[in-house]
Structures are given as C-alpha cells and as structure tokens.
C-alpha cells in the first residue's frame, strides 16, 4: 500500500482496516511521525493499539516518544492510551530512570501509579532507587504499584525490599507483597512468613509460599485451604502441600502421619483434584495420595501414572510402598488396561521386595496373572507382565518372553528384553535355549541380539554372526555392536564387511565398534570408511582413527576439512587435534570464522590443544558467539586453561552475559577456581 493509502486506511471506520494500516506503517522507509504513533496508541480498538505498540517500539524518535508518553501518563483519561503508553515505555525506556524521577515529582498520586507501572515494565534495576521511597510511602495505591514494579524488575534488592514490607498493617499492600514474593519464587522461612499470614484472606493467596517454607508448621494452614470451596484455592493448597512434603527433611514422617490423619476434609479435595485437576494439580495430588497411602485414591493415582502426568518422585514413592498395597493393586484387575498394567507391575515388584510378608496364595496369584497377561491383547498389559518377570521370571518363562520379542510393539519388546537380560544372569542356559530358534529377521531381531550379547558362549556368538546376515538393518546393527565386544581380529574382519553395509546406521555402528577394538585389523576398514558416501560415516571414521592415534591417516583426514558436510569437517578437526597434527592451527582459524556452530565448537576444542597464549586468544572468541552452547564450551575450555588472563576474560564476560545457564557456568567455574 502507498503512503497515502496507508494514511487513508488509518482513518477508516473499519477497525480491521486501521489495524492493517498500522501494521503496514512499520514498513515505511522514513518511519512514522510521532503524532501519528500517539494517535494510533489512543485508537478505540485494542487490536489497533496493540499494532501501534509494536510500531512505537521501532520509532527513531525515542527521546521525544518517551517524553510524549510520560506526559500522556500524567494527563490522559483515555485508559486505552494509558495502557499502551505503559507498555511502550516498558519496551523503550531502559536507562531513563531520571526522566521517570522528574515525572514522578511533578505528578499527583493518581498518575504516579501509572508511572510506577511503566518503571516496572522496563525491568531496569536502576529504577529501584526511585521505587524504594514509594514502596515505603504513605499512599497505599502507589506503594502497591511499586511492589508490582519491583516484582517485574526482580533481583535480590527488589526481593529484600518486598520482604521488608511483609509486616505492613495495610492488608491490601501485604497481599500485593505476598503475591509478589510468590511470583519471584522466593523461599521464606516459617518464622518470616507466619506473622504475615495471620489473616484468613491473606492465607488464601499464600499457599505457594507456605509450601515453599518446607516446614511442617505450615501444614495446618494448608490443610484448611485444601478444604476451601473454591477449586482454585483448594488446588493451589494441594500443590503447595505436595511441595511441602517433598521439601520437608527432618520431620517428614510426622508430616505424612498428620496428612494421613486429616481425612475428613482433605481426602475429598484430593479425590476431586486427582480426577478433575489440571496437570500440575493432578501431579501434586497423586504424590500426596501415595504418601498418605490413600487406598481409595489408588485407581486415580494409577490413572495419573498411565497418563504420564506424575513426577518421578511419585513413582519412587509408589515403588517404596509396602506389601499392604499389593491386595488393593490386585483389585484393579477390572480397571482400564493401562491402569491394570501399572497395578500388575507394581504388585509384582512389591511382592518380590517384601517376599516374607506376602502369603503364598498371593504370590501364586501374581505369578498366574503374569503368565496369563503375557498373552493379553493390550500392549501395555503384555509389557507389564513381561517387565514383572524381571523379578518373578524362571526358566519356564524364557520361551514366552522370546515370543514377546516378535511383538510389533516397541514397549512389549523393550520389557521382554529387560526381563531376558535379567534372566541371562541367573539362568543363561535356559535363555540361550529359548533364543536358539528365535527369528533374527523379525521386528525383535535387534532385541534378540542385545540379549545374546549378555550370554558369553560360543553358541550365542554363532547366533550373533547369523544376525549379521539379517534382512533387518536394526538387527545387523545390534549384532555388529554385540560382536565387537569379543575384540578378536577375525571379528574385526567380519565387522569390517559391515562398513560396506547398504544401511547407514549399520555402517556407523561398524565404524564406531571398530574404533573401540584394540586389534590392528580394525584400521584398514576404518580408512575405507573415510570414503563412504554417507557423511556421518566419514565423520565417525575420522573420529575413530583419531582416537586410535592412527597418525598415518592424517593426510586423508586433512582432506576431509574440505568436505561440504559440517559434520565431517568438525569430526576431522577433532581427530586432527587428537592426533597432534602440525597444521591444526590453520584449520582452527578457518573453523572460528565458520557459520556452522558445530564446526566452530570443533575449532574451539582444537584451539585448546595449542600453546597456552595462542589457545587463550582463540578460545576467547567463543565468548561472544551468539549460540549459548558455544559460549558454554568456550567457558569450559577457558576454565580448563586457568590462567590469570582467562579468569579476567570470564569476569568481564559475566557483566554482559544474559543467559542464566551461561552465567551459572561462569560463576560456578570461577568460584571453584578460586
């Protein structure tokens, strides 16, 4: 649309036309005049205003825009414009604390709170100097806005100011402070929090903070909240109790006992949350139901496990349940198959772990259920039955488990493999016998190879050699990996054939396996693999030769630096660095100007092998790389070099770094070094 067209559209009666006009203005080569931006920010339609916010953030007249918007905040009654102005200031007014200070001094209480809101949205810590007197000031509305602003800015100073206001007698302000600390993720001690939550209204919004104390004293309040008729309050309380239970260390048993005893109001809330809560609430409720050994919630807990919404802690707690849970678990026989699958597997494990406490009749029942369910129509049930044989399996089961290996279900095959691997340690002959006629060409060929690799016998080796001829690439790959363990020269030759396999994954497995074999016979096929048409195979071959210190391969690996595939170039550079190639420095220089992250990282790793002064200079280039993972590698290598200069570099990098994980890498590295 032309400039005139845009202006005309901007004055259309149709809000959608105006919206698109404002969208189009961002493409104007000379920018949009300030007056037009402010007009758009005060449009009656929120969608136009939202587009205007994006437009304003790109304005070249930043200083004038900030002045104009600060004036709007003080003067306007147009709520839409005011909100839009706050948002724009939040985006563009970093480093302008002095302008806000001037505006605050000139504004009345009504306008001050809008200025304060915009200060918070800038997330600029320099604003805190001007917020501090306001959060302590007499105007409750402005103080509450200052609390909100401090939460937006965050950091330890903001958090400290909020904590200071926890004892305020102004209930409204105290609620703001508690909500703010909740959002900041602050952990208050019970001593800090208790005086602030002496009021029922305040407690309703403090569930998360109560949970985070990790102190059992908070439980009573939370149990009250769990029984609240509002589902939001009740759910928040349950989630908080789960956090409390998970973080309480010393008095945990006491806490669980108190939880278990509080059945009247607490249990119905728990049931409701397990059945109808959102995922985090179901997660918390499931954990609590397991801790309290609440049998009436068992089906719902197992359903949550089946839906994969429980935390690892809940699974650990379930598996740590005692033998008393076995009968209730077996009563789930008629439940949905996925629920029954988990019940069966858990009952099998618990009965095995508590063998002495389980009556013979129950043991027999479990055993017969497993046998029957091994042929169930549902994959989840078959997998559970197979997995249960990890504990209950004996030679009789080997054949049935091997049959499971031909299942098209990955889950069933994985469980059967795991059980057979366990049995291979206890009854290797029975496993070997059962595998003798196994179909290496079927979907479970690779799994059969895995189990065979656990059997150290000539017969198993023969079967694995048969696996090399399987029509299934996965089986050939697994056979290659298993046979490499033998590490004999005749094996190297057999595996060498697999370097010419038509499947790339078999090739890679062969190259990798050859690289791990100590026999010299492995070198020749590895050199051949450097010419593979598949890039990952060439890369693996270079790495394998590098690890094997095959210096004779240096010229051919150098040639791979010209490969068009980044995976090959980076592998070649790593290999040359390991081999101590005299020309690696030149390759490093090239790698450190390459756009591909992996090549750049290989360049950094190779640079680390150069003399210290040279290495310091080259590795430090990684500190300004746009990819966080590259910067982390550079940090690790610089910490490894550990010179005064590298420590200085890292301290300097810390001031500019914004990624929390990278900052943590520098901070913890420097701390350990010190």
């Amino acid at each position, binding site marked *: 649309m032309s400039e005139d067209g845009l202006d005309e559209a901007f004055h259309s009666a149709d809000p959608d036309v105006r919206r698109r006009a404002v969208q189009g203005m961002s493409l104007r080569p000379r920018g949009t005049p300030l007056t037009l931006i402010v007009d758009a920010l005060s449009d009656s339609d929120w969608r136009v205003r939202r587009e205007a916010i994006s437009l304003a953030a790109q304005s070249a007249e930043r200083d004038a825009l900030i002045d104009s918007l600060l004036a709007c905040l003080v003067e306007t009654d147009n709520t839409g414009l005011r909100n839009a102005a706050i948002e724009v200031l939040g985006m563009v007014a970093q480093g302008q604390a002095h302008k806000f200070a001037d505006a605050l001094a000139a504004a009345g209480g009504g306008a001050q709170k809008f200025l304060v809101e915009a200060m918070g949205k800038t997330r600029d810590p320099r604003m805190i100097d001007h917020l501090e007197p306001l959060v302590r000031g007499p105007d409750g509305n402005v103080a509450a806005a200052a609390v909100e602003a401090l939460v937006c800015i965050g950091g330890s100073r903001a958090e400290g100011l909020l904590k200071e206001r926890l004892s305020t007698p102004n209930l409204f302000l105290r609620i703001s402070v508690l909500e703010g600390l909740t959002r900041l993720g602050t952990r208050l001690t019970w001593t800090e929090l208790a005086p602030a939550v002496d009021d029922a209204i305040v407690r309703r919004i403090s569930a998360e903070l109560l949970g985070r104390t990790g102190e059992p004293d908070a439980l009573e309040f939370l149990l009250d909240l769990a029984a609240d008729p509002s589902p939001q309050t009740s759910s928040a309380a349950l989630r908080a109790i789960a956090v409390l239970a998970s973080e309480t260390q010393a008095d945990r048993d006491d806490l669980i006992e108190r939880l278990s005893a509080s059945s009247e109001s607490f249990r119905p809330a728990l049931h409701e949350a397990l059945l109808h809560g959102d995922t985090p609430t179901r997660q918390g409720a499931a954990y609590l139901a397991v801790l309290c050994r609440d049998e009436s919630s068992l089906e719902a807990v197992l359903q949550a496990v*089946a839906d994969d*919404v429980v*935390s690892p802690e809940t699974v650990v707690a379930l598996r740590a349940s005692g033998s008393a849970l076995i009968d209730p678990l077996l009563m789930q026989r008629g*439940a949905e198959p996925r629920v029954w699958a988990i019940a069966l597997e858990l009952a099998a*494990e618990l009965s095995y772990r508590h063998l002495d406490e389980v009556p013979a009749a129950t043991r027999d029942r479990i055993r017969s259920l497993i046998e029957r369910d091994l042929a169930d129509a549902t994959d989840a049930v078959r997998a559970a039955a197979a997995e249960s044989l990890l504990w209950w399996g004996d030679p009789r089961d080997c054949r049935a488990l091997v049959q499971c290996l031909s299942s098209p279900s990955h889950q069933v095959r994985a469980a059967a493999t795991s059980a057979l691997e366990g049995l291979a340690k206890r009854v290797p002959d029975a496993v070997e016998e059962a595998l003798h006629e196994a179909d290496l060409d079927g979907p479970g060929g690779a799994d059969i190879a895995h189990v065979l690799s656990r059997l150290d016998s000539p017969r198993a080796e023969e079967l694995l050699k048969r696996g090399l001829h399987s029509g299934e690439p996965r089986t050939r790959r697994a056979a290659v990996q298993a046979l490499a363990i033998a590490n004999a020269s005749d094996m190297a030759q057999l595996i060498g054939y697999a370097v010419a396999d038509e499947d790339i994954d078999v090739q890679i497995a062969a190259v990798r396996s050859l690289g791990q074999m100590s026999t010299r016979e492995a070198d020749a096929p590895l050199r051949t693999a450097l010419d593979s048409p598949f890039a990952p195979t060439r890369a693996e071959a270079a790495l394998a030769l590098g690890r094997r210190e095959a210096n004779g391969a240096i010229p051919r690996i150098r040639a791979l630096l010209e490969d068009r595939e980044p995976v090959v170039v980076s592998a070649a550079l790593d290999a040359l660095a390991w081999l101590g190639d005299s020309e690696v420095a030149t390759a490093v220089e090239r790698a450190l100007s390459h756009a591909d992250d992996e090549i750049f990282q290989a360049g950094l790793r190779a640079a680390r092998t150069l003399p210290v002064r040279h290495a310091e200079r080259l590795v430090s280039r990684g500190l300004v790389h746009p990819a966080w993972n590259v910067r982390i590698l550079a940090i690790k290598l610089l910490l490894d070099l550990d010179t005064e200069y590298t420590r200085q570099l890292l301290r300097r990098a810390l001031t500019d770094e914004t990624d929390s994980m990278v900052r943590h890498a520098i901070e913890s590295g420097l701390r350990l070094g010190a």
Partner: protein
Amino acid sequence: MTLLHDAGPSLKLKEFRLIRDFINRFCGIYFADDCAYVVERRLRERLRELGVEDFREYYRYLLYHPKAEREVEAAAEVLTTNETYFFREAYQLRAFTDEVLPAVRARALARGSKRLDVWSAGCSSGEEVFTIAMLLDASGLFDGWDVRVFGNDISRRVLSKARGATYGAASFRAMIPEYAKYFIETDEGRQVHPRIRAMCHFGHLNLMNQRRAAIVGRVDVTFCRNVLIYFDDASRRKVLETIYQRLNRGGYLLLGHSESLLRSSTAFEITQLTTEIVYRRPIPFTDMPPRLV
C-alpha cells in the same frame, strides 16, 4: 521399559536445551526447564530404537543424520501430550451450541450455502472431534447440510486411535449421559456410532507448517483448546496466523479456558457471548448489512 521402570542415559541440562529448542523449531512445542525429566523419559524410547548411546549423540543425529527429518517427527510424536476426553470444558461447548452455531448457520445461509466446516486443531485421539460432531447432530440445526469436522494432529499414533473411534473409561470422565446414544459397546470399549464417524475426518498435520495447513480448506469454526499452552510465543503467533487464514470471515476460534490471544495476535476480534469469550475473524464493514456499518 515401562512408565514405572525406565532406565537409560540421563539428559544433561545443556543437551536438554539443545534438543528442546530443536523440537520447538520443528513443531512449536516448548518444554520449560523443569520438564526435562519428561523429555528424558520419553526420548529414551527413541534412543533405544535408534541404537544411540546418549543424548549428545541423539542431538547430532537430529542435526546431521540423513533420516533426521523422520526422527524429529518421531520425537515430536513421543513428546506430545495427548490427554483428552469427551465433552471437555462442557460450559464452553454449551456456548458453542447455543450461540456460535446459530450465528454460523445464519451466516452460511446468508451466503446461500448449506455447508459447515469445523476444524479441531491438535485433536489428539479424536474425542473433541467426535464431541463436536455429536453436538452438531444433536442441535438439529444442520439436518440435511453437508457437515464436516476435521481433526489434525502431529502424532500418527493418536490419529490411528482417533480413526478406530473406540475409547476406554478415561475418555468418558466428563461424559454427558444424554449423548450415550452415540456410542456402541464393543469388547475393546465404547465405539462412536458410524453416523457420527462419517461426519469426521482426520489428517496428519504439523500446525507450524502453514503451507500444508491449506488442506484444511476454509472453516467456520476452529477449536484449538489446550494446544497453544504447550507452545512458545513465536510458535503460538505462527499457528494463530494459520488458523486465521483457514477461517472464513466471521468464523470463530475457541481456545481453552486458560488461554487468551491478548499477547499473541491482533488479527481476531473478541466476541463476548453470554458466559464465554470467543474470538472471531473480523467481517469487513463492506460485507456487513448496511444497518450494522
């Protein structure tokens, strides 16, 4: 390897972020750092399948392997959450039946059409698609019309379940008894009635792939409930752009109860119904009857 017992390589935080971002670029799903354990557990299945030893190697597989494209799809498949049930968020469905459907019907009739298209974007195992079809049937508003409900998902596994249309107890946790007539009892569970199934269609579609989304055609209503909550902001904006393009003018978008477009898109207008807020693709003034302009 089951939900109770899974062992395998552990996922370091650095690897988690690399893999998480890779998957995010492909299908928009975003995992916060505290969900690393879910990614670790679910992707172990893929590592085992590929014979890959650890997550570092798996990441390189995703970057460089000739079969990487297929693998990222498989990874997305195991990582997506597929929990859903019939008549989820029933109060919103009531608003759909009582207020959205009459409006959509009137608009279709005004343009001389007796066709209704509804899209369930991210339909998982199909419960929502069939719920919509049952509501349309029960409303009686579209008897004799050409009604199509299309559901898409990125997971082939859940689509296969949707096509089977047979469900266990968990799918009926919010079932409304008067709709029981739309199911037939079978040995495997309750199966959706063939008449309802005939109205429903399913397809494998990545919502981030705008070009492929054209197969959805133009629709009158889009349900995208509890899908965008798994996406990051940028991906959410991209998906909303696709949904906007697929909606007829005046067509409705229904999000989950905790979701809002306020920060993600200005393209839709808000429509306040009696008890619900829904979004609508604006009708240009030129398309409106003169008295409304």
